[in-house]
């Protein structure tokens, strides 16, 4: 019931423009997220400081090519105030192991709702 209430309130926030909707591609966040699944994430207004904690799923810009949006999990905060990003499925992902820590500015939003498709043997 709590999950349903959370989902409803997230949808309301999305309808109000406080959440952004994204579709996942790629395999680096399996089993949390499979390609084609959707997430809602907070929308940050310019200058707003996002509260980010270790373990959060976040949407950000790729440090090597900012046109590309990425979805990763926050590892830890560095002394310089940047964050390391990790893949849930490290064998299938590039992340801070290759890029190093990512500046806070490149993190656009925290994922607040994950919408998984039904999981079964023939997914």
């Amino acid at each position, binding site marked *: 019931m709590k*999950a349903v209430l959370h989902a409803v309130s997230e949808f309301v926030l999305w309808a109000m423009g406080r959440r*952004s909707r994204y579709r*996942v*591609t790629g395999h*680096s966040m399996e089993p949390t997220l499979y390609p084609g699944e959707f997430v809602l994430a907070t929308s940050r207004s310019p200058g707003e400081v996002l509260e980010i904690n270790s373990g959060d799923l976040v949407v950000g810009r*790729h440090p090597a090519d900012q046109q590309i*949006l*990425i979805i990763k999990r926050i590892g830890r905060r560095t002394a310089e105030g940047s964050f390391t990003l990790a893949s849930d499925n490290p064998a299938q992902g*590039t992340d801070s192991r290759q890029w190093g820590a990512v500046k806070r500015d490149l993190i656009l939003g925290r994922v607040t709702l994950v919408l998984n498709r039904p999981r079964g043997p023939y997914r």
Partner: protein
Amino acid sequence: MTLSARLLELLDAHKHAPTVSAHCDGPCGVYDPASARIAAEAVLSMAKKILAIDTSADGAYNTYIRYVAIKESEADEVKRQLDILWHDYFKPEHLEAHPDLHNIFWQAAKQCSAAKVSVSVEACTDLLNRIEEIHNMFWSTKGREVPWVLANP
């Protein structure tokens, strides 16, 4: 959450959500036609091995099937590696120097299929020749002269 996932899918058909990438081929910027060349050499090698099978030997049937399976999967790997070069590395500006780029990749991908449907040294050699052409085109975009070297000459 199934219902809401379904709702979002319906909504996405109407208006696409931006995609967030959880990819392995992030823009690491490391490209080399050698990956396609190695797989294509494996295809050629398997074609030769299939043609050399002594069909009267014990286990020949099993050997035959194994070799064909490897030839199939390596030819698929060539296609995948060519695709990575074609849509991830090459950019519209490369078309100016190489106006035939799309056709070269298209024909090379078709040649992968030709190497799969036949057991033909000629078809596999043709595939390697097409990859050599891509190799030359690729390194010319970087202004580098890299010799075409085969692992199995």
